[in-house]
Each structure stands twice: as structure tokens, then as C-alpha cells.
């Protein structure tokens, strides 16, 4: 059982200030849900740089090698055919498929890496903090697990920035 406190903001400026205050008071923010990307929020929340591009590069490189290697093997070793008077090892004709598979592998690699890393996908348990989190307002969710007396402090900061619907929710996990 974990306890969270959630609240809505009307304006992203209020959210930014509240998040900054909370971070200064060493309160851990579980998540922020916004209808559009907010500039300057990532550094406040202290997000680490995503490693998705590295996954993309590696899976893309694997796709490139598999595509090129398989075509070379198929056309030279396994079933050599003369097509249009070209040599068996005809690099230009391999390029489009190599390109496509590189893109495909990179894309799938990144999607699955993202799903695994953020524990999404079939059977995932995603607690819904409020029914309106995908609406037009800015929501902040704060962890209340660490200390019990945090509630008053958090509420004070949130109210200072005109937060609405402040409530505590218990979620099994």
C-alpha cells in the first residue's frame, strides 16, 4: 500500500513553481501529467537523459547487419540466380532492403525498450490517480510514502500556487 497526494493546476506557471518548491524541500514528486510539453520542467524534476537513442543505434545496426548479411547469403550461397545480368553480390540492390530493415529494427527496438523500461504493455498495473488526468489541466502527484508528516508541508506549497482538488489516494502495489 502506497499513499500519493495529487492536485490540479489551472496554469503551467503555477505547476512549475510548485514543482520547484517541492524539490527544494526534498519532497519526491512521483509524476507530473500535462496536456502538452512544458519547457523547463525536465530539469526541475531532475530527469536523467534518456538512453533510448543508444538502444535505437544498436538495434538499427543489428537490423542493418541482418538485412545485408541475409541478402548476401541468399543471393550468393544459398540460391544464386542471375537477375538482369547483374553480379550475384550486387550491393546497390541490397541497399533499399538494408535501409528499411535498419529503420524497422531501430523503431521496434526503441518502442520495446521504452515499454519494458517504463513497465508498460500487457498485464501492466497502472494506477489511475484521477479520472481527469488526460484532460486540459496540469496534475502533480507526490509520494507520501517516506514520511507521514509531509502532508501538511505539501499541501501548503500546493495551496500557495492555487492548486485545486488536493486529495490523498492509497494504491495497492
Amino acid at each position, binding site marked *: 500500500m502506497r499513499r500519493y497526494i495529487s492536485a490540479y493546476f489551472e496554469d503551467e506557471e503555477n505547476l512549475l513553481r510548485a514543482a520547484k518548491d517541492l524539490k527544494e524541500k526534498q519532497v519526491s514528486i512521483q509524476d507530473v501529467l500535462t496536456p502538452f510539453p512544458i*519547457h523547463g520542467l525536465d530539469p526541475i524534476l531532475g530527469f536523467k537523459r534518456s538512453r533510448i537513442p543508444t538502444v535505437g543505434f544498436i538495434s538499427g545496426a543489428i537490423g542493418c547487419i541482418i538485412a545485408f548479411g541475409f541478402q548476401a547469403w541468399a543471393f550468393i550461397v544459398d540460391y544464386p540466380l542471375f537477375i538482369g545480368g547483374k553480379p550475384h553480390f550486387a550491393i546497390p540492390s541490397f541497399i533499399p532492403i538494408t535501409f528499411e530493415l535498419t529503420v524497422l529494427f531501430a523503431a521496434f527496438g526503441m518502442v520495446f525498450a521504452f515499454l519494458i523500461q517504463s513497465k508498460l504493455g500487457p498485464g501492466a498495473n497502472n494506477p489511475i490517480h484521477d479520472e481527469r488526468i488526460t484532460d486540459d489541466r496540469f496534475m502533480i502527484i507526490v509520494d507520501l510514502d517516506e514520511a507521514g508528516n509531509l502532508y501538511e508541508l505539501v499541501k501548503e506549497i500546493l495551496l500557495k500556487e492555487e492548486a485545486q482538488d488536493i486529495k490523498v489516494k492509497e494504491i495497492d502495489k
Partner: protein
Amino acid sequence: MEEKYTLKRKTQYGILSIVGVGILLLILGYFIESPNRQELWANVLINNLYFLFIALFGGVFLALHKISYAGWYTALKRIPEALTKFLPISAALMFLIYFGMHDLYHWSHEGLHDPILEGKAAYLNIPFFFARMALYFLGWIGLTYLLRKNTLDQDINPDLKYHKRGKILAALFMVFFAISSSTMSWDWIMSIDAHWFSTLFGWFIFIGMFVCGIATIILLIAFLKSQGYLEYINKEHIHDMGKYLFAFSIFWMYLWFSQYLLIWYSHIPEETAYFAPRLNDHKFLFFTVLIINFLFPFLALMTRDSKRNIKWLSFVAVIVLIGHWLNIYMLVIPGTIGKTAQIGLIEIGFIALYLGGFLYVVFSSLSKTPLLVKNDPLLEESFHYET
């Protein structure tokens, strides 16, 4: 915020010495290599096109961002505007080609009795060739002049009408450029090999121009920043320029390969006649162009940090600029000089001479107006830009 670039003595001497080296190399090259008329004219054409492309891209950059409602570029607007100031000189240099027509364009000769060229004579004839040239330059110079004048007027008068008028001018430029960039590349480059044609050629040239122009703007930003100007251009803007360089280097290769693959596959003599001399006589340059225009920027600019590092980005930009000069060299040379072409003192001399002139025009144009535009409604957005 008022900032004005002053052309320092040191920079002036630098430009002057580039011109000096160019003239010296040309004189030396003339006596040592004793080039024929054809080689000299081919060099004039290559450098004309190269610096014309960079200058013209200034207009494309402005118009493209204006009509796409982009805000981030507003703070660096004066740099592409300064590039377009070279266009009138480019025009004058391009009309010089009149005296070298017969050395460059085989189709311009009289009495060829060539059925293919006779079929194309309605388009490829000398009067129409220069009429088109005049039309292109009229459009480009006129519209870039108006675009530039519009922002200069906006500096004085904060009225919103200049912003709206700029959009109309930018749209007009884009339409004119879309057609003229394609026909310009047929006229000046593709018609060197007059029997051959490719429907993709205009795009290929346009993307080459895009990469050259972005690389030049990156180098100008890096230079101005090293002199202590452009404080408001931060890593986010640099990152975007890097993305452009990266993406359009890939797109350049995409178009190059799209053209090559079809010709290689169908293997029809009329079409392979274009690639045969390039692959057989200039094998080294042929593959060098591909490596330094695609493979190098592709690997060098892949990570986020490399695009945000201005020093590394300028290094890549220099390499890519060399690569695209070689690309134009490879487009022009096999159809004019052919097998015997070599890059020597004459070639480097011509580059230095043109580069010196180009830099002088751009820097003196930068020093005439404040480096930062005023009253642009999107200027504030540009300062707070974040990718």
C-alpha cells in the same frame, strides 16, 4: 538590445590574404599547369555555382522559416540576409559564362546534326538560355532584396504589417524558387551532358544547396560567437542547425542513391553514359564525395552532444563544405574536361579568389546593419527557444 558587428582590421587582412593567395596561385598555376580555356571556364562555372548556391540558400532559409511560422531562427536572421547580398555579384559572374559557352556546353555549337540535340533545341538555345538566366536572377535578387528591406523597415517601425508582408514575400519567393531551382539545375549543370537527363536532378541539386548553406551559416555563427557577438544564440539554436546538417546530409544521399539505383538497375546505355565516365575515370573522387558528404556527417553528428558542440559542428561543416564543392566538381568536370581533369593550383586558386570575395561581401553586409532584428513578433520566442 543593440549589437553591431564591426569588420575588424584583422578580419579584413585575413580576407585580403585569402584573395592574395588565390591570385598568386592562379598566376603560378597559369604558368606551371598551362590550363586550356576549357579548364578555366569549368572552374569559373564550378565556383559560380557553389557560391551562388550558398547565397541563394540565404533566401531559402529566410522564406522557409517565415512561411512555416518558425520563431527560433529570428535572432539569427541577419546571417542568411547577409548571404543573399552576394546574389548580384553571382549574377554578374554567371553572365560571364556567355564568353565560355562553347567550352562548357556542347549543345551550344552550331551545325551539330545531332537528332537528340535538335529535338531539345527549343529549350537549349543560347538566347533562351540567357533569357532564363536573367529571369532567375531578377526573381531571386528582387525577392531577397524585398525580404531584407522588409525586416530593415520593421527595425524602425514596430507595425505588424511588415510581419504579414514578409509572409507574402516569403511565399512568393518559395514558389519562384521551387520552379527556378529545378530549371536552373537543368540549364547550368544537367545540360553539360546534354544527351542525358534525370527527373530527380533538380531536387538533388537543391538538397546539396541546402547542406552547403546550413554549413555556411553554422560557420558564420561560430565565427561571430568567437568574436564575442551573438550571445543570445545558445546551444538550442546550434542544436537545430546541427539537426539540419545531419538530416539533409542523409537526404542528399537518399536522392543520390535514388537516381543511381534506377540507372544501375535498368542499365540502358543512354542513362549509364552519365555514370560511366564518373565511375571509370574519377573512381577515387566518386567515392570520396559519398563518404565525406554522407557517411562522415552521418556518424559524426549522430549523438545529441555532437550537435550541441559548436566546435565539433564547425569542423563537420568545413568537411561537408569541401565535400559539396567536390560534388559540384564531379557534376561539371566529366562532361567538360573529362579524363585529364586534376585538382591543382588553378582549382585551389579559383576557390580562394571566390571565397575571399564572398567573405568580404558577407562580412561588410553584416557590419552595415545591427546583428539583431527588432520588433519582430517572434523575436522573444527565439530567445527562449528550447528544443
